[in-house]
């Protein structure tokens, strides 16, 4: 069986595209990095030969006017309805960090991401726990540890109780909440469960040596597991 084709979408200023491509490769997909302008010029490629879509992290358009705003405008106004169609076909999408910010601004995911309550960019490791949810990416996932690296990651939602009741809270910070997100929410999914957005970077913990306590003998939850789950799903629905 051939590997699922994964498109890693990169806007100008996206900078974790290579990191997530490496994670997808380890997870069994065949990733290719596609520039946003190339996709806008030929949106059909997404539906034709892509089984899994990643909106990678970074500072698209320098995060001017708010993180992810410019990228989301391009998606909303220039990409037509290929993203909703992609979702309707049941194919998995993951937006990481800046990609998560884009997905909330386009309305594919609920809520919004405000400035961290510290007021500035933070880089630190967090522990993530996956509650029971609709997310095909995280349901049943063991806790993972990976870094955050963002300034605008405070998750905001007007009705988190309903969100949780509806099975859309896909990941929570466990132990400490780094940015003031409501209900410790680190990631959410859409109504169907195929679209996941999260602020942390599981793509930066795909081999044990990347863990900051590796020298202490710690071998805690690889972020790779999350990608493996998404890739398996993409493989199964083909």
């Amino acid at each position, binding site marked *: 069986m051939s590997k699922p084709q994964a498109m890693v979408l990169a806007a100008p200023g996206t900078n974790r595209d290579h990191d997530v491509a490496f994670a997808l490769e380890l997870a069994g997909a065949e990733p290719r990095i596609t520039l946003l302008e190339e996709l806008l010029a030929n949106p059909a490629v997404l539906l034709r030969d892509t089984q899994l879509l990643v909106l990678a992290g970074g500072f698209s358009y320098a995060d001017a006017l708010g993180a992810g705003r410019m990228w989301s405008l391009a998606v909303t*106004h220039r990409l037509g309805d290929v993203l909703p169609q992609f979702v309707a076909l049941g194919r998995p999408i993951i937006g990481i960090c800046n990609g998560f910010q884009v997905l909330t601004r386009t309305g594919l995911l609920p809520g919004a991401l405000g400035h961290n309550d510290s007021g500035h960019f933070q880089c630190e490791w967090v522990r993530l726990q996956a509650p029971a949810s609709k997310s095909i990416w995280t349901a049943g996932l063991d806790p993972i540890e990976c870094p955050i690296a963002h300034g605008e990651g405070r998750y905001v939602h007007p009705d988190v109780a309903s969100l949780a009741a509806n099975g859309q809270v896909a990941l929570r910070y466990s132990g400490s909440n780094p940015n003031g997100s409501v209900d410790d929410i680190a990631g959410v999914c859409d109504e169907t469960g195929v679209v996941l957005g999260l602020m942390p970077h599981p793509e*930066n913990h795909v081999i044990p040596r990347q863990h900051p306590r590796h020298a202490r003998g710690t071998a805690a939850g690889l972020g790779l597991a999350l990608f493996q789950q998404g890739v398996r799903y993409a493989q199964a629905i083909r």
Partner: protein
Amino acid sequence: MASGARLTIRTKEADPRAAALLADAHALGLTEVTAIDVADLVFFADELTPEHRARLEEVLVDPLLQTATWAAPSRGVETELLPGVTDPAATAVALALHTVGLPPVEVATGKHFDVQGPGGAPVDAATTAAIARRLLANQVIERWAPAPLEPSFIDTHATAEQSVDHVTVTTLDDDALQALNKERGLSMDLAELHAVVDHFRGVGREPTDVELETLAQTWSEHCAHKTFRARITLEAGPGAGREVTPLMKQLRNCTDTIDAPFVRSSFVGNAGILCYTPGVTVAVKAETHNHPSAIEPFGGSNTGVGGVIRDVMGAAHHPIAITDILCFGPTDFPADQLPEGVLHPRLIESGVVAGVADYGNKIGLPTVAGAVLYDPGYLANPLVYAGCIGVAGEGEWELPGPQPGDLVVTMGGRTGRDGLRGATFSSATMDATTGDVAGASVQIGDPITEKLLIDVMRECIGLYHAVTDCGAGGFSSAVGEMAEGVGADVDVALAPLKYPGLRPWEVWLSEAQERMVFAVAPDQWPAMLAVCARHGVEAVSLGTFTGDGVLRVRSGDLTVLELDTKFLHDGRPQRSMTAVLPTPDRSLAVAPVCADHAATLLALLAHPNIASKEHIIRRYDHEIRGATVVRPLIGEGHDGHADGVVLAQPTDSHGLAIGIGVNPWYGITDPERMAHAVVDEAIRNVVAVGADPSSVALLDNFSWGDPRRPSTLGELVAAVQGCCDAATAHRAPFVSGKDSLNNEYLGSDGARHAVPPTLVITAIAHHPNADLAITPDLKRAGDVLVLVGRTAAEFGGSHLALLASGGGAAAHSPVPAPDPAAPARYQALHRLLRTGRVRACHDLSEGGLGVALAEMCMSGNYGAHIDTLPHPDLTTALFSESTGRFVCEVGPDDLAWFLDGLGEPAVVLGNVTAGKALQLPGLFLRVEALRNAFQADAVHGGAR
């Protein structure tokens, strides 16, 4: 406002910027302020219809997070960027309008502030003005006004006279030449002015203004390293009358003598180049951006990082990591005692850190290694060092150079008036008016444009014959350097501009950021353009490399510069300088009086130079690229400082280690020993993490005072001697360096204040097995702690001496001497470390053994029971800063193996304990107490 529209956007919840601003206001002594509310402004040059406004709100306002109004406020204070200063928000609004199909309109952005006093009432006009001037607006790049501010839009229809002025020099006497030098800010000395006069007498005409400026830039201290290339004669003091080998030549000779097999290129081009593994080369470079950071801290450090990354790109390598070393005045310095025209250290620190974070985080490189130092000597002259490391495939950097007929291609950012005369500015002394006159010398970076340049260059390997970055001096330096020997003919009228109205000399000398210059064969040009188009990067050919050895610059048909490149590059007369060597007292070895060792240890841990830098380090992304194996923060709670950092691609078993050495307090007393000690420290840092001491390459970065003062130059001569001695002893070659001189402030009282002699050494080394990288945190109760190296009473410039003298320079006893046994020790230790059997290793530096043990306990969250000390005097044992030492943790069963492998005596100090306390003879300190001291600054002060 007269016409146009303005949108004010507020966050619904408390804006986190408000709390930070309030804390800054209080730190500046503006204690009557109780709140500062902040909002963002977008100005539109045209009136807008209600429909247009509604659509703009949809684009610019997030209803879950923000509210917005089109009404103009009646109170408060507002700021905007000066026209021409990089404004990414305005650019983004313009792009957003285009994306959603709205008609174009000119845009400017700004901020609105409401400053409240007691009871929430607005503060009076005088306080508002004070806070606007000192906190809200940096008038180097911004202006402020009581709300509503009338915005200024850049004139998009400006025209400039395309003319050239000839400047009479050939008939001037010395006084008139000096006057011209000062009037035009050329920063030349008389011998250089004479060389210019002689050249143009020979040519038979007067120079153009463009030629004069180009010569001034090319011959500036910043670009030409006049002092490091000068003929130096010692006068008075030791060795009087002796001529010293030029400093740069000493460093090069030292590298040549060591003849290390892993050095591919040293002291040539933009960066040093190393090769540790077949098929891959590593480029390393560190730079300073001191003067710009003093007057506009964010933009200064921001463009410093951008510039050093371009140095690595200019060496045809792909950047993989950033380093930064920052020196500030004390952040609690009384605001009312600051020298005139000097920004408060607290604002400098927060601005510099934000600038480094902004550039590094956005360009997508991990900021991994660094140091932060505080000393009153940096009040008026903060120092900002930024370094970059890059990789390339073997041979990719070995380019043939510009060939006759090649195109002169500029790629990346557009050219504006940014940073005119930066090279000459950075070579001059600062005074109270520097911020006023140097405004145009400071720029804000655009990391996304540079990120795209990196992406383009990765796909353009093999498509160009030469590349260099546009740094100080702009096209003048970049094209001027590339044209050396071959010649070039360029038309500056072809350069893409940020806005119209630039005169030819402004285009030629602009230091607009994010530009690279390439030499491209005409038949490769279409392929290169195609790559640029794919990434949305602008590239334009300005002309050709000619082959006639003449640099010709035109604006259309008007020739503005015609210089023989041989004169431009070799015509500068060698500077002759005199130096007086320092005579440090190295005889007396007396420990400072220390009444309470426990209290002293806590005081050392709380000292800003030793205390936790977590509040700064966490602002930098050190995780991106997934290759950071040993991070700057390590240990059980990720809150201890690493010695060196280790980088290794996830797919590689081996990697690189980076270490930093710096100690200006040694430099004040004994510059030669300082240099030796900081080279040793940088090497110790990489050895401690397990890197191979046979593979160390070094970068030197000197920040010094005015070298025309013989005593200051003497300190530099002594420091270079120390560098060469240490490099030779460790067989660790220097591969690149940079000097930033004239870091002085001329006070309004006429007194000159120079920075302490600050030499930053960066060590890069090969790490044979990144899986076995070692960190200093204690790992297991019951393990044995061993002190490696010799301990003597050496307190000159030590932090114990700093504490004892209340922060001033301290001359208690000699600055730590070089240990001749150190190189062999590092080799022996490395053989032990690479087995993976040594559980922790920490190098001893500021604060000595006491601080090192405390750090190991805190980061490991273990205690230690120490029963044997390396010296009978407790003060010396705990706080001496003798060089060449490490503490290692080994399992009890490995102790004999470890001691045997060292091949020299070592001190078995005691054991790691599960009980969380550090016990020493006569001392008992809970780890929690150590941590409270170490982390106090991280919680209460310093950068936000």
